[in-house]
């Protein structure tokens, strides 16, 4: 029992210790359509140094929490653009945009999901 408590304690402590002041949360407008886009955008935004990335398909706002010592806005949005989704800071190239599945091609298509 004692050991169990110790293990649980450690489990909870480690991530807490790992956390420090080196963290910011920012929001960006990122173009996209649907749930499929959401997954792609969030995965792309999750570059090294990012702790959490969330894209709202209703408002098209991407909220990222990251460590400024390890990455920056441009890095993150470049990765998102590389996956085919433009943002206020970084536009995607035509070639990358065309790789998106049809329903995610937000410039021409919409999907009601």
């Amino acid at each position: 029992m004692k050991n169990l408590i110790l293990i649980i304690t450690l489990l909870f402590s480690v991530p807490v210790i790992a956390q420090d002041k080196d963290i910011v949360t920012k929001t960006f407008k990122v173009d996209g359509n649907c749930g499929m886009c959401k997954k792609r955008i969030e995965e792309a935004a999750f570059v090294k140094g990012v702790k959490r990335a969330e894209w709202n398909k209703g408002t098209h706002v991407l909220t990222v929490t990251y460590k400024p010592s390890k990455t920056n806005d441009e890095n993150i949005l470049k990765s998102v653009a590389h996956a085919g989704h433009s943002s206020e800071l970084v536009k995607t190239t035509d070639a990358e945009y065309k790789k998106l599945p049809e329903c995610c091609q937000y410039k021409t298509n919409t999907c009601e999901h």
Partner: protein
Amino acid sequence: MDRIYKQLLLGSLMMLALQANAQTDSTKKLKDVTVRKRRSPYTMLDPIKKELVSNRDLLKAACCNLSESFETTPSVDVAFTDAISGYKQVQMLGLAGPYTMITRENIPDTRGLAAITGLTFTPGTWIEGMQLSKGTGSVVNGYESVAGQINVEWKKPFEDKDEKLLLNLYQSSQGRTEGNIVYRNKFSDKLSTNLFVHGKTQWLKLDGNGDGFLDQPLDKQFVAANRWFWFGPNGWEVQGGVKGVFVENAGGQWDYKEGDVQGLGKPWGYTMSTQRAEAWAKIGKMFPNKPATSVGLQLSGLYHDQNAVYGTTNYLATQRSFYANLIYQSIIGNTNHVIKAGASSLIDNYDETLRAVNYTRNEVVPGIFAEYAYTMSSKFNLVAAIRGDYHNLYGAFATPRLHVRYAPFARTVFRASVGRAQRTANIFAENMGYMASGRSFYVRSAATGSKPYGLDPEIAWNTGVNLTQKFTLDYRDGALSVDYYYTQFQNQVVVDIENPHAVNFYNLVGQSFANSLQAQFDYELIHNLDMRLAYRWYDVKTTYGGTLKERPLIAAHRAFANLAYETRNHWKFDYTVQWIGSKRIPSVHEHHSTVIAPESYSPSFFQMNAQISKTWNENLEVYLGGENLTNYMMHDPIIGADNPYAPGFDASMVWGPIMGANFYAGFRLKLR
């Protein structure tokens, strides 16, 4: 040592508190953003707690139909009905499968004769997702659900994001081949259709434990369905569908051939053939000028015919059912007061013949219902409901139900429910597993009037409380959920197998109850690595011939852990390990002898499943997996296997896996 751990505990508690503060600062901005994505297995706003089983969860076990898909869900137990037929039944809250209502898009699905076997009639590939709720559900769907409700949503034809055509092939090392086709076509925004086709065959004879019996029967299964959606002008919506099922099973002793005469000195055989046809329609109308007001009509009809042979026992059964449900929904003033009211009619006709004795019955149950959902604030809401039904054989009865939700904080939800449920036990169809034994079937009833089998209806009261707490730890989400349910039977049709030579059915005299406690913890350990830990405890007891005893073949304890990892380049890894506690085995014959052994307990055991899959371009997915990797098996699942026509023969005392490790591979090809 003592001091160290106390300090650590204190320290980490403080840090947790600090972190909680820090979190609220940084998440304040996020507040308006909807709480996120796939890692929330529960509904938060609904007064009825629903566990969401997503398509992703279903794919954790590539195999294959509804009953197997629950093997990765901690809330549902899956166990073989017997060591011959290969059928599995589910349990929720410690109660057998038929106590759970299975609905297909809110129309009752596998009722009656198909209560056990019917779960294999819905292939996993067809399913978009499921909602699982414990306790008595909504009265809109009827009065029957005692332990809970599982609603299955099929893939929709009008979802643009879905593939046009899904092809799936599966092959296992134990000689099972399966194929699925799911096709959708959207002719216009108004009209769309689905076509589902499923074929499965077990073609390899296997006897891993060397008892002379096939571990599972050879089979051929074919299921097809077609449905149409039409979204008309002025808020009209129409859906209609048909489904057909054709299954042939043949098992038993190795040398048995279908159609052979059975008796002493000849091979013991099992065959079952099932034909089932279903048709349903949903007609809905929304009123554009009246907000949130709609009328819906659900219609469904089915014909089910099965012919089973277990040695010298022949069980023939036919079911014809018709169901109609009219639902009116509206609001009083604003959407804080939603009412649903309506009328339903359930007609069941059964014609069964067991060992040359015929049982027929007609049940006609018209009913009316009303459900009121009140939302006081985002913190408090409730659903209060009542229905009244008139059963032609059992008379009138009322079904009240109440669900309350209280959320003191945005991510903390307490819920409580209480409700009544009633159902007619289909004693033979629900206990077919016992036909794979030398047991005699006795119905101990007063045999008065025209009651089904001369027995009373099963009536139960179910109460439950649950807590769901979502949290964010180091920017990753998790959820903790604890629930407790208590089901008490006012009457139950007791299935008494305490005598090794008989199955006795009788009305409950004394107590019968089920306590169920479950705790589940979900957390994203590192980015894209999801962990699920669960533990559940049952205390299920029934009075058998004057003695309150633990219900047999139910594990009191079960622990469950699942890890799921997904890489950026679409590799998925899934690992599930379970520990299943010991189960009470009633007094049975000793193996290879005529001596009767006293009741005993089965050993506890571990089970492991793992699966790897890789997806290319979101279009082709290939998977490879293994089940029962610990290779744990019951040594002698069939008692008296070398003398199947003797009274000691019993293949129904199954408490664990019958087959060893199974490996499988398959693919899903999606054409868009």
